[in-house]
């Protein structure tokens, strides 16, 4: 029988021997060298039966298909826009995916999106050479006006959004802010200035304490104390059909239908 050297939630460094013997299988972020399963990056251990995975804790965003991202326009092209994805690769937003309205040939594209505008886009395609296409056809995909943008660790985004969007919905409800969290780690907040600060602090705290259990409750009491309100239960904020929850990389969400997000417009 093989020997397991680590526990669930352990932090491991590259090269560390996670398990000895052929009974354990390497998966995401781990590899086999001779008889041992070793860590292939710095991460947190996840054990699923015999399979050992690593959850990445740090590092830049890598574009993935169907991710919803927040990105600034950095260049205007002949037939679209170039946007910065906050990764090593830039993305192109072609005219045909930019708007449901007809944009005639030769139109001044800066009238639609100018340099420096922030957009919420969905990645429509990523090639093997990491050429990225984004699209703005879909609920919640829009140009962002006003508010503020800040960057968080992209690997903490699933935690900021929470299970089925529970965490971010709670912050939205408590502060009354409009919030968009991009998978690439860019977050947009728009609301009353003092509430924006509270929402910002809450998101920063989630980012910092993402690996600790009982986070939702701590954020809840924190918000209640700061805003002097009562939030009944975090569970009420499950909003499976919203843009943020779709952005979650969760297998269970793959089957959800974005078109059904009827309440989307009221959100913004």
């Amino acid at each position, binding site marked *: 029988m093989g020997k397991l050297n680590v526990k669930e939630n352990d932090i491991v*460094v590259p*090269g560390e021997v996670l398990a000895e013997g052929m009974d354990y299988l390497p998966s995401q972020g781990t590899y086999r060298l001779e008889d041992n399963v070793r860590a*292939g990056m710095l991460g947190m251990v996840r054990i699923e039966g015999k399979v050992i995975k690593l959850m990445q804790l*740090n*590092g830049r965003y890598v574009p993935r298909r169907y991710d919803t991202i927040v990105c600034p326009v950095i260049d205007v092209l002949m037939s679209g826009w170039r946007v910065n994805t906050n990764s*090593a690769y830039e993305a192109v937003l072609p005219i045909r995916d930019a708007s449901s309205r007809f944009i005639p040939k030769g139109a001044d594209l800066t009238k639609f999106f100018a340099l420096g505008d922030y957009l919420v886009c969905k990645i429509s395609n990523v090639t093997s050479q990491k050429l990225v296409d984004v699209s703005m056809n879909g609920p919640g995909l829009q140009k962002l006006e006003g508010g503020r943008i800040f960057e968080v660790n992209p690997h903490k985004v699933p935690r900021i959004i929470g299970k089925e969007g529970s965490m971010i919905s709670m912050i939205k409800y408590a502060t009354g802010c409009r919030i968009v969290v991009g998978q690439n780690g860019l977050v947009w907040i728009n609301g009353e200035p003092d509430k924006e600060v509270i929402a910002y602090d809450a998101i920063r705290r989630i980012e910092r304490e993402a690996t600790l259990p009982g986070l939702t409750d701590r954020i809840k009491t924190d918000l209640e104390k700061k805003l002097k309100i009562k939030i009944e239960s975090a569970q009420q904020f499950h909003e499976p059909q919203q843009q943020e929850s779709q952005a979650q990389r969760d297998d269970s969400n793959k089957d959800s239908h974005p078109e059904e997000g009827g309440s989307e417009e009221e959100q913004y």
Partner: protein
Amino acid sequence: MTATKTHTLKRADLKKSSTEGLIPMTYDKRMDGRKRFEEMRPISAKVGIIPRAHGSAMFQIGKTIAYAAVYGPRELHPKFMQNPKTGILRCNYSMMPFSGSGERVRPGSNRRAKEISMVTENALAPVLDLTEFPNAVVDVFIELPQTDAGSRCAGICAASMALADAGIPMKGLVAAVSAGRVDDKIVIDLDYNEEAYEHGPVADIPIAMLQHTNEISLLQMDGEISKEQLKQALETAKKSMAQIFEVQTAALKEKYNVKAR
């Protein structure tokens, strides 16, 4: 008669001074007060010290301090350097102007810095897997605010931690230390005084080793050493590497083990 006598006296005086003088003719004690020849200088390491970098680390060994900052993977310019098959690693080693004990080091690149940047890249490349980042670059900047020999080794140790901190996929950590001989003794981690020892032959051999396979990814030498002594030096260095890996691992884990406020 008198002349001969004086002559003999002088000879005797010479012999006396050679045994009582301050400089030993054989190297039997380390100059900086370390107890053993295979002992390294005190080591400390810290991860995540440069907030705006994607990954960063500090590595100190004795009076030598190295800071490493990792940026990327990010877009690579000039474009002709891009490799469509994989991302590339680009290291930059730089000694700060008053980092040595001698005169001011002119800032910016020079022939020595270029060479060390290159060997650092080669020492780190075997553990990295950048195939997920075609056409991109991972930049590593190594700055040395203070040096007392062994700076390329300290730089490699810091860079390997910084790369792990930046979340770059890697097979294992890399540690480096210098080994060598001073006079007839095999020593580990030479400081500047030992490198500059004048009363016998000296060899200074910076070595970098991969943690997961114990393979050597950097081996340079300055000086002269016999085959047997080289083998002995490499074996001794291997034991020191294990200590460095421990320090690196502990520093990395410390940053990521968060506590609730």
